[in-house]
């Protein structure tokens, strides 16, 4: 290793100095590299964005343009009528309300119970704590399908099928391994001094959690909340199994039912897709820092 270094260094010393062309200079080369990198990245972005553009373009085309060959890239007249048709064919606003209701119901349970559990794992000592925490992490890897059928049978026997309870109530029991993990990681960054001060002032553990930890971890709680709203919004399998009619379904299930039952034109279907993805996109743009923080803290992508 050392020898190699010496050889390389000597070779460089012996190099005959000569005039460099402008593109061979270090500064210029850095700029050229940057431009090339940006061009590659730009190509990637264009490829990623074309489906989005196409979704919006098709949603505004008339019934002839969608079947045109070669395809039309820009609709001649913007047909906002497609949106009206999509929204009136299925009870869109009802589904929207159902989706919000489901997401909020889940998020409240997730934030409360996951933070409670995470507080226990982050701050309280017990002999079996580390083993139990490993168990939490193990469930992160557990395939959902292995518990799917008995869970369904359980809720069926309880008389909760069809309905939203099977989708909401489990969130109040631990709130999922991912969220526990994320909040525990965050709680562990809060200095113990806060705990000591609170204890001296006579706070119990519960008050410590409620009065000190939760207010201090507002950004982490917001991250958990936003991730879970996103998951709930996108969740398809849950509603597919537990919600049966169009009236009671969510948007994610609704577009699937819309596609299957009404066999709609492409433009209406895409209008529906736009309507479903837009709220998420808007949320993302306002809260992107939280999304990215959540991924970075835990190392798990959305």
């Amino acid at each position, binding site marked *: 290793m050392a020898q190699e270094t010496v050889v390389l260094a000597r070779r460089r010393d012996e190099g005959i100095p000569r005039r460099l062309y402008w593109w061979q200079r270090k500064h210029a080369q850095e700029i050229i590299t940057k431009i090339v990198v940006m061009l590659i990245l730009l190509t990637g972005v264009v490829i990623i964005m074309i489906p989005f553009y196409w979704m919006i373009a098709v949603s505004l085309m008339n019934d002839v343009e969608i079947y045109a060959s070669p395809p039309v890239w820009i609709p001649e007249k913007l047909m906002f009528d497609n949106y009206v048709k999509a929204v009136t064919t299925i009870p869109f606003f009802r589904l929207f309300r159902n989706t919000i209701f489901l997401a909020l119901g889940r998020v409240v349970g997730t934030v409360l119970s996951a933070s409670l559990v995470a507080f226990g794992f982050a701050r*309280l000592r017990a002999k079996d704590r580390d083993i139990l925490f490993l168990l939490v992490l193990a469930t992160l890897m557990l395939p959902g399908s292995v518990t799917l059928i008995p869970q369904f049978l359980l809720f069926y026997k309880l008389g909760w099928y069809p309905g939203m309870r099977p989708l909401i109530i489990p969130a109040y029991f631990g709130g999922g391994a991912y969220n526990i993990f994320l909040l525990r990681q965050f709680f562990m960054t809060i200095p113990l001094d806060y705990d000591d001060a609170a204890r001296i002032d006579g706070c119990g553990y519960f008050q410590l959690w409620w009065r000190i930890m939760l207010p201090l971890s507002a950004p982490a709680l917001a991250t958990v909340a936003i991730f879970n709203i996103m998951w709930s919004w996108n969740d*398809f399998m849950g509603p597919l199994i537990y919600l049966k009619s169009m009236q009671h379904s969510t948007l994610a299930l609704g577009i699937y039912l819309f596609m299957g039952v009404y066999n709609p034109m492409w433009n209406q279907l895409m209008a529906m897709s736009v309507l479903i993805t837009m709220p998420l996109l808007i949320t993302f743009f306002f809260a*992107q820092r939280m999304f990215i923080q959540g991924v970075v803290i835990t190392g798990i*992508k959305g």
Partner: protein
Amino acid sequence: MATVARAKRKNSMARKEAIAFHLFISPWLIGFVVFTLGPMVASLLLSFTKYNVSQPPQWVGLGNWVRAFTKDYLFYHSFKVTFIYAFTAVPLQLVAGLIVALLLNSKIPAISFWRTLYYIPSVLSGVAVAVLWRLAFHPTNGIINTMLRIVGIQGPAWIYDPKWALQALIVMSLWGIGGGMIIYLSGLQGIPTALYEAATIDGAGRWRRFWNITLPMITPILFFNLVMGVIHAMETFTTAFVMTEGGPQNATLFIGLRIYFSAFRDLLMGYASTLAWSLFIVIMLLTLLIIRSSSFWVYYEGMRK
């Protein structure tokens, strides 16, 4: 005397803390028993029965398992489809995500802007997007074949062609590399610059630095993404269900779809449990295999060999 009393008090405080710990984690503990452990045991038991919900379960011993392994052609087929997908899509995602992260890490301006753009598809991984891709893969009017035609390639029928349907899903999965990219990027930014400086002084070129510093330093992240990616891919459901419903000619009949169809369309709860447990065992074995292999290729800083 005083020390004994103090020790006793310390002891009772520790006990109080332990009790509080168990109270705090009790929601999870109850949830774990009721919604995870219990159902796991139940589905193992169900896998030895015949059960159609309306009549009580009927014990059939190893019947379901024998049927799955010896008589059910689709059992192997659905595992094959799932394997092909997992072992093509996941490595491609890993490599593509890493490449984008490396490009982003090369001190270009407006890094967070690019990062956001690449992450967007990961936010929208839902049915609406599956619907969008279903149309994007349309043989004549779809955007994919339209773009291929621009560069002079006659595209296949994608999700309508048994030979290409699975490939279509793999292509689509590459759309969501942004999530992994963010993890790599934070890992790359965590590599001490001193390492690169030392290597540069030693005369290491760009490629050498990547191969001997960057890559080893992010192998833990690669490893983690590989494990989670494989588990996730083995459970593929929504995209395949919405885009192809397992077709054409079962070309995209993932094991996840198979379990769903057996349980909720054919009401074969017992047999579906057998399938689910088979998947669980396969995933466990795969995960163990990857973990065992990690000692050969994952570098942990601070670990002595």
